[in-house]
């Protein structure tokens, strides 16, 4: 079904809902949703916990056009259950990626998938089936990549990309991130709960941001593009990545990723905090990375060797 999407009022990616992001990202009027809210594919498990359901289970999947080219899209709604992966939520993304894998060669078929990640990770009320869904998603994603499909992660929502969502982001061909786009495996609260506040004080907001935030991820090479917190900025970054060449999924790429990650450990493995990394990178503005405006930051990132590579 074609959906009448509501445009975002503010234009901020962070503030927008998942549907607003799709509306601003794609060419106007081109989005076609699969298994939309009228299909009422709700989580069968949340009622056990007396929790409300959502008619899309917190993820919207479909197809549309990006500057005239056909693309598949999945957008997580971080405001519903933290955008978490449950059985139905995850299976919708599995279905989309399997379609991409099996139908990429047809004339009108999309050869790119945009993943608008906004997730705390696995939904704990459905922990086992949610985690298995993440594993199925990664397998389908990698198979789609091996078939020649480009998969681009866009990270800048309220929930970030944590847990399995952080691993999933790094399995994509490319990652776009904004300053607000936090990414990690264990979230700060989880580390604090398990290891103590002296390991990671989750209430120390500047520490949390410079450890998991988009600027740090971009400079280290965890994301290949940096976007301002605007929907049009994410759109421009996604287009530039699709036009700029996409790494193949093969032994050569993974050998280069092995070398890249080994080099990162060698150079920065002894660093305990992000500013130590910036100093070792000899960044001119090492002391004020967090304060830099998007354009100034982008210039620094584009000149930084570690931040720019073809190995993912």
């Amino acid at each position, binding site marked *: 079904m074609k959906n009448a999407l509501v445009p975002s009022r503010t234009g901020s990616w962070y503030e927008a809902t998942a549907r607003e992001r799709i509306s601003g990202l794609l060419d106007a009027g081109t989005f076609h949703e699969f298994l939309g809210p009228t299909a009422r594919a709700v989580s069968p498990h949340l009622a056990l916990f007396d929790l409300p359901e959502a008619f899309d289970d917190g993820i919207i999947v479909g197809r549309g056009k990006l500057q005239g080219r056909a693309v598949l899209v999945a957008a997580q709604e971080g405001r519903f259950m933290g955008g978490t992966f449950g059985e139905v939520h995850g*299976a919708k993304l599995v279905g*989309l990626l399997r379609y991409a894998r099996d139908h990429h060669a047809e004339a009108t078929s999309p050869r790119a998938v945009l993943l608008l990640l906004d997730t705390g990770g*696995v939904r*704990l009320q459905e922990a086992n*089936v949610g985690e298995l869904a993440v594993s199925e998603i990664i*397998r389908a994603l*990698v198979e789609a990549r091996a078939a020649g499909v480009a998969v681009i992660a866009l990270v800048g929502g309220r929930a970030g990309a944590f847990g399995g969502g952080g691993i999933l982001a790094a399995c994509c061909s490319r990652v776009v991130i904004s300053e607000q786009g936090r990414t990690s495996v264990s979230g700060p609260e*989880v580390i604090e709960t398990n290891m103590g506040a002296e390991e990671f004080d989750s209430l120390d907001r500047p520490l949390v941001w410079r450890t998991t935030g988009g600027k740090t991820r971009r400079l280290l090479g965890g994301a290949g593009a940096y976007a301002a917190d605007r929907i049009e900025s994410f759109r421009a970054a996604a287009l530039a990545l699709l036009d700029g060449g996409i790494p193949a999924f093969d032994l050569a790429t993974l050998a280069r990723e092995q070398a890249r990650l080994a080099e990162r450990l060698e150079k920065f493995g002894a660093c305990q905090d992000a500013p130590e990394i910036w100093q070792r990178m000899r960044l001119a503005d090492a002391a004020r990375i967090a304060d830099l405006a998007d354009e100034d930051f982008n210039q620094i990132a584009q000149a930084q060797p570690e931040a720019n590579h073809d190995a993912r």
Partner: protein
Amino acid sequence: MTRAELLDALFPAGHATRVEADGILVGTATYGQNETVAVLGLVEQTPLGVEGALALAEHVLEIIRHSPGRPIVVLIDAQSQRMRRRDELLGLNEYLAHLTKCFLLASQRGHRTLGIIFGRIAAGAFIATGLALDQLVAVPGGDPMVMDLPSIARVTKLPLDRLETLAKDTPVFAPGLAHALPIGAVQEVWENPVELSAKLAAALQEPRPTRDERAALGLARGGRLHAAEIARRVEQEAVAAAAHD
């Protein structure tokens, strides 16, 4: 079952493995009709951090390069991912993703990949190891999970005793092998040590699964009733939409 007992039971014709830093097991063993298998593992209850993930991934790439087609058996007795601020700063998500991708690349290039859980494995470390393999089995003592029940209680703000009661009716959230089997995450439990070598040889003789069959398995076992159907409906609607585009 200890690692030594497991190795002896799986490979009575011989095995040579060593444990490197960060609990990484590596070596080779003989199975079936005098055939060689690569043995890898994450053992000694070690959490998986950036160094361990990178070292294990390097071994996988080495096997792909130098021993094309050789089956890879992965023994697992670990923890979750390492919970350190420094590992997250360095991009642990990329290291775990890289390891996951290396295992999947091995499958794509024709290696059998089979995991055997004989201790704990949890959360992101589970995604990057056991769940990234074509086949996954457990022996008694295997304990896969996302998170322990007290932690789930803390995050969901539900009383532990209520979660324990709920876990009797559904396998979807609570930790342990008893729940990993019905949803299709773990294919089998190999109970009898005496049969391990025969079970392994038989599993490695089966045709390599070309498709992810875990949702179908969960459906057949009644533990994950919706995933296969939802994925199929999305694919179906995508095909229909393409016809009208």
